[in-house]
């Protein structure tokens, strides 16, 4: 017998090494990354354009070559071999290292951009300076930490998007979806807003606007400086402002009704885009326990309430009181918000009462009463709206939700909590879309008769932590607010049980406790 160390646990010692090509590719990518680190530590590159291109080129080439070496010579199909044996993808040593590095990066990005080389008045230094040439090329000005971040973010979606395309090259749904997120990130989130900055002059100025970034995900869209800029920028600005409002009140409801929230969350959204590409190797790390689902429902809806309060307070704070100057006054606005919330609340309670779980009933009543009571309190006693100053609400939301939740925890913790922590627990946009998806949409994941073998691949690879198997093994369709329609459950199912479909609202959630394959009389018996 050899002296091979046997691990008696069920996860043994399979080959988990990467092949030679993958090693070379990794080295190339890491050298590209190391160049950025050198810039970070203030090594002043002589020809920034060249070195930035070399660095980004090597990162992209390394990632893509790595993917080709990993998948191109293998059969088309599911590529999850050894996921739970690899340190990086099973919360091992390398997962923690990556998580810590990403978290540190986000902390520096949000709160200490000077360490990245950002200089407020004067020439940039370090890493930010390295990105100056690209920034000047696109928007005409020097780079900021946000330009640096946007570039790396877009690169990540594109390079890991190619990896995802190779990994799922047997699956047209996955391919189209990935082309879509790559397109929207590159075009809408990166190039268009950067190029739009070129239109700005002393007399004309548009805010930086990623058109697909919809309120409330884009929680600052209706802040005073932006609205002022929109209004002062004439027809184009007004058009953009109207588009921003229409996005959430018209476009979103229509598309979500027809296709579910997936049209946004896994086809368009930038957060979703990163989760689906760079985050794909970590999708199985989401918590599937029922207790996680309970926490999720409270947390995400609380964030939604927070963003509604915050935005209402902010908009309220800059509106005027004189209706002769402009029809939309503080009071008109507040009453409209209260009426809209009341309408939604009553609508759900009248038409969809049966579909609300106990905690949804408690939560909806509690939050509704609190909001309306605060508004009433403001009108009757003149107390500050929502008790806190609008600016304090805005800053706390930006800090707690915008920075810590969506950035530091959302992405920094990819290798520990999975890729969709923000989308699942925090994103208020996902909450709105999910609310509609659950109650008023044609989308569902269909279960194919009695073919489920309860293997658990669907649940394991659900990045949103949905216990898909719990429904599939009962022959029930899956209609869950959190489902982003990534389609991976259907892809990994070894028995062809799951399918993402848009269909009629009737019988969208069927509950045949006795599955096909048994005597039909038995079904009648049980359903009596």
């Amino acid at each position, binding site marked *: 017998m050899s002296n*091979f160390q046997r691990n008696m646990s069920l996860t043994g010692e399979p080959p988990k090494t990467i092949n030679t090509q993958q090693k070379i590719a990794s080295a190339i990518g890491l050298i590209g990354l190391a160049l950025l680190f050198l810039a970070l530590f203030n090594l002043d590159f002589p020809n920034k354009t060249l070195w930035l291109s070399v660095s980004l080129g090597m990162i992209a080439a390394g990632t893509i070559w790595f993917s080709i070496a990993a998948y191109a010579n293998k059969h088309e199909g599911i590529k*999850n071999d050894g996921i739970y*044996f690899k340190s990086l993808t099973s919360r091992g040593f390398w997962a923690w290292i990556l998580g810590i590095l990403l978290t540190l990066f986000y902390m520096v990005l949000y709160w200490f951009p000077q360490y990245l080389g950002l200089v407020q008045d004067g020439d940039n230094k370090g890493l930010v300076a390295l990105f100056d040439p690209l920034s000047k090329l696109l928007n005409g000005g020097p780079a900021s930490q946000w330009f640096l971040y946007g570039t790396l973010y877009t690169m990540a979606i594109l390079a890991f998007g190619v990896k995802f395309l190779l990994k799922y090259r*047997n699956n047209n749904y996955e391919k*189209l979806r990935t082309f879509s997120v790559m397109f929207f990130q590159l075009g809408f989130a990166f190039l268009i807003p950067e190029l739009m900055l070129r239109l700005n002059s002393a007399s004309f100025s548009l805010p930086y606007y990623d058109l697909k970034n919809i309120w409330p995900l884009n929680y600052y869209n209706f802040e005073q400086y932006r609205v002022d800029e929109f209004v002062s920028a004439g027809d184009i600005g007004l058009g953009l402002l109207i588009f921003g409002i229409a996005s959430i009140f018209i476009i979103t409801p229509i598309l979500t009704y027809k296709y579910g929230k997936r049209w946004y969350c896994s086809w368009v959204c930038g957060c979703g885009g990163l989760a689906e590409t760079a985050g794909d190797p970590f999708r199985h790390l989401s918590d599937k326990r029922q207790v996680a689902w309970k926490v999720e429902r409270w947390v995400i809806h609380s964030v939604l309430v927070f963003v509604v309060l915050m935005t209402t307070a902010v908009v309220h704070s800059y509106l005027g009181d004189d209706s002769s100057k402009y029809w939309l006054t503080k009071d008109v606005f507040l009453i409209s918000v209260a009426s809209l919330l009341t309408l939604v609340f009553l609508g759900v309670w009248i038409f969809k009462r049966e579909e609300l779980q106990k905690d949804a009933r408690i939560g909806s009543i509690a939050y509704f009463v609190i909001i309306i009571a605060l508004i009433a309190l403001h009108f009757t006693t003149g107390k500050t709206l929502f008790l806190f100053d609008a600016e304090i609400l805005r800053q706390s939301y930006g800090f707690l939700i915008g920075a810590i939740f969506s950035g530091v925890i959302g992405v920094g913790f990819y290798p520990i909590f999975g890729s969709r922590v923000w989308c699942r627990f925090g994103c208020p946009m996902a909450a709105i879309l999910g609310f509609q998806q659950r109650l008023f949409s044609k989308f569902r994941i269909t279960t194919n*008769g009695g073919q489920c073998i309860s293997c658990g691949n669907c649940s394991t690879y659900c990045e949103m932590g949905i216990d898909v198997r719990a429904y599939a*093994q009962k022959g029930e369709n899956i209609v869950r607010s959190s489902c982003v329609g990534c389609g991976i459950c259907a892809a990994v199912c070894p028995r062809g049980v799951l399918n993402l479909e848009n269909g009629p609202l009737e019988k969208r959630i069927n509950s045949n*406790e006795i*599955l096909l394959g048994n005597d039909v009389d038995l079904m009648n018996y049980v359903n009596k």
Partner: protein
Amino acid sequence: MEHIVIIGNGIAGITAARHIRKLSDKKITIISAETDHFFSRTALMYVYMGHMRWRDIEPYEPWFWEKNRLELKKAFVETVDTANKTLHFKDGGTIDYDKLIIATGSVTNTFGWEGLKLNGVQGLVTKQDLETLEKNAPNNKECPRAVIIGGGLIGVEMAEMLRTRNIEVTMLVREDAFWAGVLPKPDAEMISRHILSHGVDLRPNTELEKILGDDKGNVKAIITKDGEEIPCCVVGITTGVKPQISFLKNSEIETDKGILVNRMLETNIKNVYAIGDCAQQREPIGNRPSVEAVWYTGRIMGEALAQTICEKPFEYNPGNWFNSAKFFDIEYQTYGWVFSESRKKDYEAQFHWKCNSDLRCVTISYNKNTNEFLGINTFGIRMRHEVFDKWLNEKRSLEYVIQNLKQANFDPEFYKKYEKEIQSKFLNQTVNA
């Protein structure tokens, strides 16, 4: 309160328990010597392959059992005393029951070859088998080559598992192609080519003579009936399974291959029932074998028996046959009956279509006298269970099925559709015939 005791925590036993709980407040105890909790046996392979952890193949969280008042006992039942309604455990101790459900499943079927006792010879049915494989074949240094005896569903799973760790696999198949005893020849041949393409040394028309060991009692090679010696460290025995009933040999319960039951799933002893793999129908139902070792039939029997136990006497009356599997990257579903050459009924004819990719094919069987649709095998194209169930009940014609095949498609959105290709091949064939 009536005490229902279930031996076995597989899909049949757990389904029965769940449905009895839904319908009643009876005391329910589930006994298993294999694991603490129910797991998906068909998912064992994914643990070895690193797709999932053990806990991921357990469909219910640990709190589920207590919440639903399902008492779990980890013990091995050695004898069943039906006169006193008592079970005796191997480690001592007893339990009394009012009604007993035996759902002990299967064990690996062997054919008395020489060398079966050697280290490294194993099946792949239980959690213990998985642990043994992890020990026997942790990687390709410890185990450069394995030989799998038998070309069936467990055999191909085991081949796929071992290949993920780059272990060379030789697969001995008695028939002239993989699973040719069940699949029609074109289907079996396509799957055989796919298995070969995954680097498995598939040997059709080859049988095992004996297994050779070294002086430490470990496997060192096998010898085929043709006299060829193939060195290996692991021998996977996947020549089917048989009911696990050895603990009943001194009991009053009547057995043959399995535990004999009637359509009510009752054994010869009152208040003793058997479901799942271990049960054998006294009279086979339709085209079904009397012992059905299939996940779905285990589940269906559990559902039916729960009714009977809860005072709504109910026959096990399975609907149309269906099954599914996955051969490396090719998914397989079947609805109705499509027989292999050796088992084909004299009225059965088959229409076959295969995609140029060699990764998809469809075989439809029909009655050549009446043109009635009898069943379909579909590889690489997902189809809707509900639609085929309906068409089989409605006794649709072959032409109807081919014309409406699109209705049955269950592939993900944006997938290439093959119905037109299938229809045009069918038309050409009919015109030329």
